[in-house]
């Protein structure tokens, strides 16, 4: 500790001779950085406040008397700023100043200044009429900021809160890795259990554990503060007891090879599958509805993943195939369909859905696929809209009902055994699960085949792929069609679930959301795509489907955008990346690692004497 005290302080003078420059504290060394972080934080605070998020989410209580989700959205920024301001890039060879009290001081200063944005806002709101240009915020904001007191109270209290929260952010840097992990576990557990209240209550009811949830949650939502404390204690104990166990297990699996690894994977898949089959039996309507929605998007995202992730074709009009699948299933099964109404059983209709979507995929793909890069993206965007507008048009309204859509679509009958409709989300989920399993199998098998390799080659370098004898047009077209068919499954289930289809269910937004799911989860990674859907669709909600945080639906796109930007900066390969994708983005580092390990021989060395390390 002594070696890194700020210069000029009495203790430092007595300490061992250390180059003083890099050891100065955050405050003195990096006031520019501090100012920048604080400014960004302040702007972010004002933006969040004016977007009306705090007011809308104030009703959702996290911990009974002290914290609502609304206030939480305001506390995150100073915390992040306070933590981030002490961040330093560790380069080999450059000195790194050790963490000390200055982290807390810097964090406090930064947090206070960031939250100062809210103080400023409180003053502005009290003195000027901001209503005119800024329409989103509600008058309750001023009250919320001042905790019901005067404006000057708001100014002071937010500076204090900011300092406290920012300091705790800086404090995180002082904790050892183990303590920090425990702290993060506690925070995530408490926030998670609070936020997932509807889900937990729903599940507990199914399993006859109402007594527990009654104890846990307050009557009108949110955790009781006592139960929050208990929960934190339990999470803390578990984190300390189980420290690193999970990581150890993961590492153990990671080093397994060959048949053993295959067996482990198989076991894990079986376990997950079994859990997904059993879980809905105990879950109520709400959970199953949520799972079904997530499943529909998993199916869509898996389809798009083949197109974007494997073959590298940026398709911005993927919703077209979702729409064609929905409409085909609707026309073929619904008695009320305007012109053609063969009233087929759903499974029979599915055959037609596959054929027709496949043909539409070919039809759209054939002209599009010859283009590359940006041009292709724009054209697919156009086709996505064209398909929707065709369903909306007067020309085809005789068949597809125009803006009236097709209603009273019967549920999906499976061999006359059961009928799957939206009224019973559990069955919908099982149906979706079955198709997801098919989609996962298809993606998994194709990726490891001649065709999958050809897709990769096309994604890497189309010209060379062609020179190596790959018919790039055919191969890309096939990716397009396989993606289209997987998307159409989702569409067919969607129409049976909702019971009606309208053109405005297939807005361009759906394409974008699916793409965001794929990018967020990890392009080319099956597990990543599933995780992406679970987080984005399950928690935040889909384009029209409410997620776990139904209150967020208004700010969904804002959060999507923020998440996407953060993801691109911090983890461009996605949540759970495919090996290949992370390789692509970290080529330099990997090449360097290989070089350090001596696995790349020196170019100048004699070719024959450069021997490879045995493995």
């Amino acid at each position, binding site marked *: 500790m002594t070696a890194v005290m700020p210069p000029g302080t009495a203790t430092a003078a007595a300490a061992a001779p250390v180059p003083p420059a890099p050891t100065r504290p955050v405050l003195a060394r990096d006031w520019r950085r501090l100012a920048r972080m604080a400014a960004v934080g302040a702007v972010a605070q004002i933006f969040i406040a004016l977007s009306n998020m705090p007011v809308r989410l104030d009703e959702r209580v996290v911990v009974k008397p002290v914290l609502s989700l609304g206030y939480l959205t305001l506390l995150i920024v100073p915390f992040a700023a306070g933590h981030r301001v002490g961040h330093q890039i560790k380069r080999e060879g450059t000195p790194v100043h050790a963490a000390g009290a200055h982290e807390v001081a810097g964090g406090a200063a930064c947090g206070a200044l960031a939250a100062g944005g809210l103080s400023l806002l409180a003053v502005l709101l009290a003195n000027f009429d901001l209503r005119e240009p800024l329409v989103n915020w509600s008058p309750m904001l001023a009250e919320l900021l001042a905790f019901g007191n005067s404006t000057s109270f708001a100014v002071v209290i937010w500076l204090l809160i900011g300092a406290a929260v920012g300091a705790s952010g800086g404090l995180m840097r002082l904790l050892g890795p183990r303590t920090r992990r425990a702290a993060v576990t506690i925070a995530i557990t408490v926030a998670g259990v609070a936020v997932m209240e509807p889900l937990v209550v729903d599940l507990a009811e199914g399993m006859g554990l109402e007594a527990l949830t009654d104890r846990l949650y307050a009557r009108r939502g949110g955790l009781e503060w006592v139960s929050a404390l208990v929960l934190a204690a339990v999470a803390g104990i578990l984190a300390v007891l189980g420290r690193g166990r999970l990581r150890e297990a993961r590492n153990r699996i990671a080093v397994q090879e060959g048949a053993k690894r295959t067996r482990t994977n198989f076991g894990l898949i079986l376990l997950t599958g079994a859990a997904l089959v059993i879980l809905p039996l105990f879950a109520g309507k709400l959970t199953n509805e949520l799972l079904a929605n997530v499943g529909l998007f998993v199916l869509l995202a898996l389809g798009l993943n083949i197109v974007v992730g494997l073959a590298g074709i940026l398709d911005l009009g993927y919703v077209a195939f979702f729409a064609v699948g929905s409409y085909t299933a609707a026309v073929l099964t619904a008695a009320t369909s305007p012109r053609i109404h063969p009233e087929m059983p759903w499974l029979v209709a599915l055959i037609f859905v596959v054929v027709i979507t496949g043909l539409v995929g070919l039809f759209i793909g054939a002209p599009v696929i010859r283009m590359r890069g940006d041009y292709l993206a724009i054209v697919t965007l156009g086709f996505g809209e064209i398909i929707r507008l065709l369903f909306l048009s007067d020309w085809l309204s005789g068949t597809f009902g125009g803006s009236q859509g097709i209603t009273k679509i019967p549920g999906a009958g499976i061999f006359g055994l059961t009928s799957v409709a939206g009224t019973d989300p559990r069955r919908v989920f099982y149906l979706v699960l079955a198709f997801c399993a098919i989609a996962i*199998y298809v993606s998994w*098998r194709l990726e490891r085949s001649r065709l999958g390799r050809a897709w990769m080659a096309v994604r890497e370098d189309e010209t060379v792929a062609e020179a190596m004898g790959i018919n790039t047009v055919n191969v890309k077209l096939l990716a397009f069609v396989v993606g289209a068919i997987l998307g159409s499954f989702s569409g067919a289930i969607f129409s049976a679930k909702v019971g009606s289809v309208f053109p405005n269910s297939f807005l361009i937004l759906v394409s974008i959301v699916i793409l965001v799911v794929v990018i967020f989860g990890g392009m080319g990674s099956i597990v990543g795509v599933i995780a992406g859907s679970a987080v984005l669709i399950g928690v935040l909600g889909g384009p029209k489907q409410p997620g776990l945080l139904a209150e967020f639906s208004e700010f969904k796109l804002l959060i999507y955008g923020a998440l996407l930007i953060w993801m691109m900066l911090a983890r461009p390969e996605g949540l759970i990346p495919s090996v290949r994708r992370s390789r692509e983005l970290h080529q330099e580092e990997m090449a360097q690692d290989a070089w350090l390990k001596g*696995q790349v021989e020196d170019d100048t060395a004699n070719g*024959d004497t450069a021997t490879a390390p045995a493995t």
Partner: protein
Amino acid sequence: MTATTASAVTRPLLETRKLSVDFGGLHALDQLDLEVHEGEIVSVIGPNGAGKTTLFNAITATVALSDGDICFEGASLLGLDPNRVTARGIARTFQNVRLFANMTVLENVMVSQHCRTRQHAFGALFYTPSFRREEAEIRERAEKILSFFGSRLMGYRFDQPAFTLSYANRRRLEIARAMATQPKLILLDEPVAGMNPVESAELTGLIGRLRDEWGFAIVVIEHHMDVVREVSDRVVVLDHGTKIAEGDYEEVSNDPTVIEAYLGHGTETT
């Protein structure tokens, strides 16, 4: 130098007739006639901008011809897509190494067998015996091809991404990839560029073995004259898109027009 000069009896493997490629007003290739016979190694040399790489691009259909014809085994290649040309039996490497950088060494060679293999999505989905057999064959063939280069691309290297390879190994992998398309003719675009003398001498030997052991006909673009002397049965000199000389190395290297093309006109300085 066992110069197997074009015997008039056998039909040439590759034949270009009055091959012309224009880029706007520039004649990159102008009425070029070229023959390559089975089992022959032909070097194409010439100053920068002579049209050597354009010749390769024209043969592999990556640029459009403005005139002339290219025949391979007696059939015209005109109007074929690049992948069809490869399927006919012409493979190439690139001057600036263009591997599938994020695919592994083995995958690079496996994917290049695409046009020689048949299994499609169906086989992969149902994991049919024929699919498994073909996958095993593809892998086996890839390993055999890589073993041609000694131990360098073997063993643990199989599963390493191509970008971790050294420069010389990338060049070798490019040749391996070309071999994997099971061609009759390989076009090597400056195969030893950027290599040190030892590596370059070794690769020169490899080019000879490619012909002797695998039976490929080879066309090499090369600037290193010692390599050209070592490998070529015949040397073709290009300048401004036309053939200015042809023959064995000794003939060509003493040809005054060739010397002029490389060194320019002698000027009277008095």
